């Protein structure tokens, strides 16, 4: 399988009141055609910024180093028509559909706009394609929905409209940024099933950003864990739960309450998640890590390959199999 997307050593700095602030440091990841990659992490870990960099949606004044290559094209160098074409190939679905749709335009206008303006598809054809896309995501009576306004649709329905719209440009990569977080669990299951079907039918690749490790584990092939702007682990999604390599991945798995059993006490991670720019030198997780030693704080950690995965921890081999259970007391 050749890689559709390759991100290499990506560093992003954003312009803030106090000057340039680093939000991602040296992130690398790759997604093969038809692969679903989970991207998990807490607030400020840089997961959304990674997606924005890939879609070229970073805020004005952002500084990027490293490279993003999509289907052999250097994404960071694109402009004008080429950039528009890139955004058609790489579709994004965000967490809050209501924040990304014009409330005073009909669903019809929203869905067909890019087809009409970018692809010069006649209005009737564009509408027919929109109706088909709505059916594909399980919406009954699409003709009626197209005539409605966003406020007339529930959150779950509107999120399906966003997915259908994202698919109209026939993208090859879908960046799903917490796209089911605001939905009820039963609706989330429905949306995930739709995404799963699309992936199978169309060979769509997916970068699935979420804070929910269980969800990522259930629907993705591989999962990448980010902390403080860095990738700390990339691993087969199923193995991330049973045999995590990085102490942070293990701590995340352990901190979550279980639906199947009641813990005496949850193994909370002390402290709070940090952003890249406020992290200490050396291992960024060291202040919260129960395995940290002086050496960890002395030099930056590099990412290395281990057992088919990648991990950013110099003690990973030594700690193999010990990072879970009993570590946080």
């Amino acid at each position, binding site marked *: 399988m050749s890689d559709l997307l390759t991100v290499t050593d990506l560093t992003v700095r954003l312009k803030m009141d106090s000057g340039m602030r680093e939000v991602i440091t040296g992130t690398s990841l790759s997604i093969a055609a038809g692969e679903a990659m989970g991207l998990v992490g*807490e*607030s400020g870990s840089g997961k959304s910024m990674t997606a924005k960099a890939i879609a070229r949606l970073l805020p004005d004044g952002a500084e990027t180093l490293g490279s993003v290559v999509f289907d052999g094209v250097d994404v960071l160098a694109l402009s004008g028509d080429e950039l528009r074409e890139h955004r058609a190939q790489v579709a994004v679905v965000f967490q809050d559909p209501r924040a990304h749709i014009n409330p005073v335009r009909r669903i019809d206008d929203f869905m067909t706009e890019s087809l009409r303006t970018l692809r010069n598809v006649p209005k009737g054809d564009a509408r027919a394609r929109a109706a088909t896309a709505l059916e594909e995501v*399980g919406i009954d009576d699409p003709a009626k929905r197209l005539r409605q306004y966003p406020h007339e649709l529930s*959150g779950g329905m509107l999120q399906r409209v966003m997915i259908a719209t994202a698919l109209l440009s026939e993208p090859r990569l879908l960046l799903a940024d917490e796209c089911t977080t605001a939905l*009820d*669990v*039963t*609706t*989330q*299951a*429905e949306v*995930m*099933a*739709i995404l*799963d*079907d699309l992936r199978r039918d169309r060979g769509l690749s997916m970068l699935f950003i979420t*804070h*929910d*490790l*269980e*969800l990522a*584990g*259930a*629907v993705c092939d591989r999962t990448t864990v980010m902390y403080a702007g860095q990738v700390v682990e990339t691993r087969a999604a*199923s193995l991330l*739960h049973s045999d995590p390599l990085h102490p942070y991945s293990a*701590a*995340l798995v352990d*901190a*979550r*309450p*279980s*639906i*199947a*059993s*009641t*813990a005496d*006490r*949850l*193994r*909370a*991670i*002390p402290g*709070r*998640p940090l952003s890249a720019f406020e992290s200490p030198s050396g291992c960024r997780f060291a202040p*919260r890590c129960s395995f940290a030693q002086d050496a960890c704080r002395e030099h930056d950690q590099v990412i290395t390959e281990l057992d088919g995965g990648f991990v950013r921890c110099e003690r990973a081999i030594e700690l193999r199999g010990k990072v879970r259970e009993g570590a946080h007391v």
Partner: protein
Amino acid sequence: MSESDIVLSVSGLRKVFGTQVAVDDMNFELPAGKSLAIVGESGSGKTTVARMIVGLEKPTAGTIIACGRDRSKPSRKGAERKLRGREVQIVFQDPYSSLDPRQTGADLVDEVLRVHHGGSSADRAKRVADLAALVGLDQRQMNAMPKALSGGQRQRVAIARALATDPRVLILDESVAALDVSIQAQVLNVLADIRDQQGISYVLISHDLAVVRQLTDEALVMQRGVVVERGVTSELLDNPQHPYTKLLRASVPGPGWTPQRARERAAAV
């Protein structure tokens, strides 16, 4: 169990908005020191129940008795309102909108103490420090404005403020839903400690079944305003009986979970 052990009792509770029935014939009793979960999806009426208990909505019918006093109707007297506020407190979902951005955590808690308990400023300062220690905030964090605090720290301030009245019942309306996983675990541990130390009762309004399992003894499942199943939380989750509870349980991702379209799921259940 004797009647005095029941700190909150709800019977025949009903709320109608226009032609919509938000909550219909709800009944439950909450013993001292126990936790009850109200589970359901958006629009199930669970938050409306919470709002009626704290007095933010007026029930259409039914009674709510907290600490032996009926609070189904709005009180006419200031003293009665204060008393009600003291007995039942609430922590909302979003600590970004539920705290006054111009007051430090210490000031927020102090104001509640001043209104409800009086006392000298030295006494209050000591109580503020005790509450801060209980929720795991240090003095620097208590003296910071909310904007300087993280979501988890803000939610601890909100919990400290709610505890300042010495409530018998604390309503947690999706109070840990917006928190990061590592912070959520910290706050859940703090809540469990407080319950053990203070004998306070919780009503947890939540859609997150794992959080419900961790924190509560009993659970009610609501669908479209009606309680469709109730029972001991662990039994209810391990062996759900009602089709809707089964559907909720089956929708939670975990090892070996594959998302199914609604029609496939309906066929399976």
